[in-house]
């Protein structure tokens, strides 16, 4: 009797502990998504009249603009993820392997400092630096590199710079974790057996860090794909980022049905890309998630 009471109270405690997470998942993620799914699957047949249909999804495939923006967003996100990885790897290597104690903590802090100000302020900072009358164009004129100040905003390269800058920390952290756990003697053994820097990186370091690399890439890719602020501020009105299309449908056009359909297409896109990424790198989702 006493035993069943303790078991019952233990189960109650378990549910209470899980409650915040469950309420969060159900109320704030699952329910709105169900609602959006239903919304995306109806079409307007007359004023105030709706019927079930796939018209919103049909629009996406029949209108080339939407498809082009979709592909462009995916491509730029992949490029941004790759650039972030290339940039973050040496940083994570330095923190994990070349520095000790206070210095590596300091380097971590340096990576973290940009996140102490809001994303809007950070992005506006980039605008001050890069706009036609901004710091960098005038500097180039002063140095005699360019005749007249050039507009650096509203270019794809600028969007990439902003995206990489925003994502860097989210790549450094999982990379650091996976490089830190790599035993130094494995690297030395690689050299001892005749490997050089490149072959040791390829055969020892990268295979060991693969779960961390994949985890970082998934996080950064998702953040980039779903980024709205950086793309629209640095890319301007014509940045043609897919989240902007969703925003336009919801806010400007009041076409919630179309916006919801786009939202689900974006969800499908990121899921498919992550699946392809896991397949290509030969990683298991559960291994990767334990590294994030």
């Amino acid at each position, binding site marked *: 009797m006493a035993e069943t009471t303790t078991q019952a109270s233990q189960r109650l405690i378990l549910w209470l502990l899980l409650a915040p997470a469950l309420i969060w998942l159900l109320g704030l993620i699952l329910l709105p998504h169900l609602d959006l799914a239903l919304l995306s699957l109806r079409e307007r047949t007359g004023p105030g009249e709706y019927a079930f249909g796939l018209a919103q999804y049909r629009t996406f495939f029949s209108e080339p603009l939407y498809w082009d923006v979709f592909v462009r967003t995916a491509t730029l996100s992949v490029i941004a993820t790759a650039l972030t990885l290339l940039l973050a790897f040496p940083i994570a290597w330095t923190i994990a392997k070349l520095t000790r104690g206070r210095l590596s903590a300091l380097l971590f802090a340096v990576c973290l400092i940009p996140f102490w100000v809001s994303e809007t302020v950070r992005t506006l900072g980039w605008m001050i630096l890069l706009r036609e009358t901004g710091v960098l164009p005038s500097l180039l004129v002063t140095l005699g590199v360019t005749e007249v100040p050039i507009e650096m905003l509203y270019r794809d390269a600028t969007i990439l710079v902003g995206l990489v800058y925003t994502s860097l920390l989210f790549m450094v952290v999982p990379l650091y974790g996976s490089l830190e756990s790599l*035993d130094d*003697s*494995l690297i*030395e*053994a*690689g*050299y*001892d*057996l*005749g*490997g*050089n820097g490149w*072959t040791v990186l390829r*055969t*020892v370091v990268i*295979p*060991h860090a693969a779960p961390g690399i994949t985890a970082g890439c998934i996080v950064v890719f998702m953040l980039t794909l779903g980024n709205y602020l950086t793309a629209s501020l640095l890319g301007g009105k014509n940045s043609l980022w897919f989240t902007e299309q969703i925003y336009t449908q919801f806010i400007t056009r009041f076409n919630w049905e179309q916006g919801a359909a786009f939202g689900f297409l974006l969800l499908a896109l990121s899921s498919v890309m992550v699946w392809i990424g896991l397949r290509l790198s030969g990683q298991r989702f559960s291994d990767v998630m334990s590294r994030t």
Partner: protein
Amino acid sequence: MTTFDLEAKGLSKHFGTHTAVDALSFGVERGSFFSILGPSGCGKTTLLRMIAGFVEPDAGDVEIGGRSMRGVPPNRRPVNMVFQQLALFPMMSVGENVAYGLARRGVRRADRERKVDEMLERVGLPGSAAKRVDQLSGGQRQRVAIARSLVLEPTLLLLDEPLGALDLKLRERMKIELKQLQAAFGTTFVYITHDQSEALVLSDRVAVMNGGRFEQVGTPQELYYSPATPFVAGFVGANNRIEGRVTSIDGDLVEVRSESGWAVHARRQGALRLGDAAAAFVRPEVAVLGRSMADLALAEPAAVHRGTVESLLFDGANSVVLLREQASRCEFRVALPQTGRYADLKVNEPVLFSFAADRAVCFATGSAHG
């Protein structure tokens, strides 16, 4: 003429103000098993890493196979290393681990596989090429680590305390295996360890290292029976240490009297004068026990000491009895005879013991040796 596979010439390494390796010069003969024995922090790891090329010496040079290694990176040295934790690549199969070095040399796949199979067979692991590293036992991993190095036919194989992580039973077996592997391959082994038993059992020659220098280099027998310094006498094998001053000298034999008044006789090592501070070392198995003078009939009456049993430390063949010398209360260990004759000794029982003066050694202590 002896050929050296490894020669160190005035090798030094400092870390800040700490001298890890202090102007070492030595040679290791081709095909021999050479051990460097020392306590942790004596500089043996730094020395090994300088030979492997992971640490750049501050001064001096390493010659391997007669070729200077100055400026030669680790991946171009004819040296391979078996790491302390073995450092097998966990993401590769056993076969890929052994093939790793061959692949880096650009050996073709078919040749690689043939050599890997041959090598695994030679180390007693035929057909394990496809296994994962974590499917192997500790001893098998050890053999893979050695196979991975030896498949490259190095001039020199360095081993960095590879038995340290194994449990006692396995360690005893791996000692024998290592010795057999070295004999079978004929490769020169340089082995570092803090375990004197490993060094004594395995090696042709042992260097005892302390404070960045070699205290003595010699065969295990030389180190054991004629230690050159008090450090070697204390570090290699068990030893009773009796400290005092020299009270008489008779040729090679000296008498050392402890402050508490116990006088023992020992063979002197190095210069000693009357009144010098000195330490005598007596191995537990050199001393003989007796209950009456008749038991010690072979000993000179002057060399018979009296004591009481403090405790019995039973450990099979290595059993010892801990005594206290009657007058001075000095502690002294005597090995129990293998016949089991004194297995019935009782604590506090009075006993006699004796040792031959020429089998005990005596060194000057104090200013001369620090």
